[in-house]
């Protein structure tokens, strides 16, 4: 009897209506982890986290004997301190790796589906463009947050475990909100930009190159603006034109670190929001067109 | 009529995998169909004919000469490939024009032939549009046109009908049959057997790298002994016919069907003769006589699934 004369059962199970986007995210993560380069980037990120862990551990060991030479050095020279600068520094460096992973994972997110003609097949199922857009976004944002916020929380926990006291607790809790905010400030625009490029351009390589070009453009703007502002005393607000500068500035403010440029928080925030909203609008527009033609 | 395409003990292997296994075949002018299941070595065989890969053993000759690195011979061959890779940034006309120029025509000749080819395939109005904007059927027509634009005596067409609508298909059948009638050698490879039948009687069947059968469909059928001929007869009084036919030598099975009967016989000639005689002599009423399995699909099934 030929195989196809056997039939299949009717489906009488439940239909899940909610969190369709989570299915997209889960699948994208599964696909992402098939690539070795992702493991490489994760290992490098891991080293960085490990390095910071050592930092916290060393500090705490040094501080166990407040009168030792090392402890005095730490207090005087402010080395190895577990303070805002540690977390800001950690997040700033981690951003490079997170950006690379987001770029790798996200530049093909939409365009590969289009190239493989999966869009018609996906949207012929009960999937709305909202689920699809959100699912893809959460993949990138999720990976980013896991590499930034989760290590920060782990470091804080470690610090509190090694030197438990009410002061330590109060101090460290104060760094949670800035860490989360700062992470979101650079993950969200980055993810939206990468997804917008992926939705606009036909190939993963072009999308990736486009995003890298945008980042370099931002750097170039930053250089030009710095020179102009310094040399010609122009309005410092121009620094906000470079989105990475604006994000860094907000980070400095969040962690109460000395600011490098004379911007206001409002200007910096406006810059980041404009970038995020613009990328988000392009992304949503293109994805919506996949499902709804007219 | 001498053979324009000849292959003698042609073999090709890739590592341990043998793609074409000792094929010896001759193709004459006219339309010939090339068919076979996926993986039978058709594509490799065509590549060797076009000089795109060298045989591992044996010889292949077009117009008596091996085609590999042979510009003189390859200039007389037109090829319409199966794959759909065209230069999207060009217009259809430009694509054919530049291929003509590559071939060696002067600008004026290339232009004229490109326009004529586009007209022949029905693309005269759209030939100056960009190929990115073409539908699948239009791209297919351009692919066919580029093969026709050359003064080719051998045309190798791999799945030429893909993407064409029924009218387009009818036009292509007529076009290819016309080319065959003109004396060109047209080798059409297709999976759609009734379309090959529509165009030609002569077929080349390949299977597992070798030549399974070659010749006219009906002749091949006549050579297949294991499967007796199956003739369906539609009539009002089948039982009378059963009586008549059971006495005919060679008949090995008679079966009543809803509208008449089915006869299985090893000697179709006698059986048909009895049927004809029956109508004449006894005035017996017959509505239809049909042979169920002398079409290409049936022959192919018998040969491949044996």
């Amino acid at each position, binding site marked *: 009897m030929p*195989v196809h004369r056997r039939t299949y059962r009717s*489906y009488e199970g439940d239909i899940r209506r909610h969190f369709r986007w989570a299915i997209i995210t889960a699948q994208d993560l599964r696909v992402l982890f098939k690539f070795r380069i992702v493991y490489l980037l994760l290992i490098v990120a891991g080293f960085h986290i490990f390095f910071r862990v050592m930092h916290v551990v060393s500090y705490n060991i040094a501080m166990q004997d407040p009168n030792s030479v090392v402890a005095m050095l730490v207090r005087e020279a402010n080395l190895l301190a577990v303070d805002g600068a540690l977390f800001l520094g950690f997040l700033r460096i981690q951003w490079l790796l997170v950006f690379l992973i987001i770029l790798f994972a996200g530049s093909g997110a939409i365009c590969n589906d289009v190239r493989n003609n999966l869009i018609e097949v996906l949207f012929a199922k009960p999937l709305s463009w909202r689920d699809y857009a959100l699912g893809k976004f959460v993949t990138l944002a999720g990976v980013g947050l896991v590499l930034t916020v989760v290590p920060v929380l782990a470091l804080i926990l470690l610090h509190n475990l090694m030197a438990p006291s009410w002061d330590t607790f109060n101090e460290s809790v104060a760094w949670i909100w800035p860490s989360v905010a700062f992470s979101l400030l650079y993950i969200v625009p980055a993810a939206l930009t990468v997804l917008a490029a992926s939705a606009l351009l036909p190939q993963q390589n072009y999308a990736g190159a486009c995003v890298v070009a945008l980042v370099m453009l931002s750097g170039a703007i930053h250089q030009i603006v710095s020179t102009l502002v310094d040399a010609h005393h122009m309005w410092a607000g121009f620094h906000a034109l470079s989105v990475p500068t604006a994000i860094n500035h907000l980070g400095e403010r969040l962690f109460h670190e000395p600011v490098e440029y004379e911007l206001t928080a409002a200007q910096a925030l406006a810059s980041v929001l404009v970038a995020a909203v613009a990328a988000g609008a392009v992304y949503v527009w293109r994805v919506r067109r996949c499902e709804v033609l007219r | 009529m001498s053979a324009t395409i000849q292959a003698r003990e042609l073999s090709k292997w890739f590592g341990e995998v043998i793609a074409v296994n000792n094929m010896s075949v001759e193709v004459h002018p006219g339309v010939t169909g090339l068919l076979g299941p*996926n993986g039978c070595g058709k594509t490799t065989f065509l590549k060797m004919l076009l000089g795109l890969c060298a045989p591992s053993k044996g010889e292949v000759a077009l117009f008596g000469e091996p085609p590999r690195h042979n510009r003189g011979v390859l200039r007389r061959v037109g090829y319409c490939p199966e794959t759909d890779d065209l230069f999207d940034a060009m217009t259809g006309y430009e694509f054919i024009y530049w291929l003509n120029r590559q071939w060696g025509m002067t600008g004026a000749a290339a232009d004229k032939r490109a326009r004529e080819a586009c007209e022949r395939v029905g693309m005269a109005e759209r030939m100056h549009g960009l190929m990115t904007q073409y539908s699948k059927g239009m791209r297919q027509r351009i692919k066919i046109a580029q093969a026709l634009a050359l003064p080719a005596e051998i045309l190798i067409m791999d799945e030429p009908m893909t993407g064409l*609508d*029924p009218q387009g298909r009818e036009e292509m059948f007529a076009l290819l049959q016309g080319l065959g009638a003109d004396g060109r050698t047209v080798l059409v490879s297709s999976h759609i057997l009734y379309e090959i039948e529509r165009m030609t009687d002569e077929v080349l069947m390949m299977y597992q790298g070798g030549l399974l059968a070659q010749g006219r469909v009906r002749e091949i059928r006549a050579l297949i002994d294991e499967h007796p001929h199956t003739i369906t007869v539609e009539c009002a009084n089948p039982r009378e016919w059963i009586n008549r036919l059971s006495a005919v030598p060679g008949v090995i099975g008679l079966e009543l069907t809803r509208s008449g009967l089915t006869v299985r016989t090893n000697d179709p000639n006698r059986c048909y003769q009895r049927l004809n005689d029956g109508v004449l002599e006894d005035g017996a009423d*017959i509505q239809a006589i049909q042979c169920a399995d002398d079409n290409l699909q049936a022959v192919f099934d018998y040969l491949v699934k044996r």
Partner: protein
Amino acid sequence: MTQQAAGGDILRLQDVTVRYGAFEALSRVSFDVSGGRVGLLGPNGAGKSTLIRTILGFNRAARGAVRVFGLPMPQKALEARRRLGYVPEREAAAHTVSGVSFLTYMGQIAGMSRVDAMERGHEALNFVGIGDQRYRRMETYSTGMLQRFKMAQALIHDPKLLLLDEPSNGLDPEGRMEMLELIRDVARLRNVSVLLSSHLLPDVQHVCERIVILNKGRLVQDGSVEELTAPRERQYEVRTRDHANAAGIPFQETLESAGFACRAERDGLLRVTLPEGESPQRLFVLASEHGTQIRHFAPARTSLAEAFLQAMGAS
């Protein structure tokens, strides 16, 4: 969920017009499907893909109403898609994952839990005839397997209406027959309605009972295959054992000189029109006199291709 009254239980299009900008892709198309296997034919650019996309809810009709399973489209598109299966024309494959993995994903998107989706995925793959290949990455799949895979992903959620666009594309002769049988089986065993769009008219004739023909966005023909391919009056197809007799005279000449209008078709087949008053037996008499046997004799039916071209000519 309200049910439409009889007629159009599965699909109902009333006066549907779809525009792409200023271009009208579908003009005032109306037809109902309550079940069975319907073939959708038409030249390139006739609006077949637009029609399928409208049924899937990707297009909004500028005028008229589209109801799938009684649900208005595209408002209730998500709900309708739960029972729609779509086999697209172009290849669709996620190269880096295995067939099973991707099919499970499709099942989950259709609303099933992961376990259910995995089970049904395997069943669907068995049904379409994909064996151990299912565990390998999809980039290793041949065209035939990808085609079957597309069928599996359309069936995994047990749809009630299956939309197929050139399902036998790229399949070898055996694969094509299997695919057509598969479609007939699905329609029969699981009571699934089928809308099949193809340029291969004999395939459509083999699978479908009803034909809908579109041309330039309009519905030009809607009838059963039986009606469209009705036998012609007094016309017969005849083939003889020998093309010409011993004297070299073709049978066609003999027929024509006896007053029978005769047209040669491919492969030695003659299409003969009997004059008034003549019976078909006369053909056998003439064949015998001519010295040959009649080997093929049947009332000439309009082929679907002819019916199609006639419909095109008329519109």
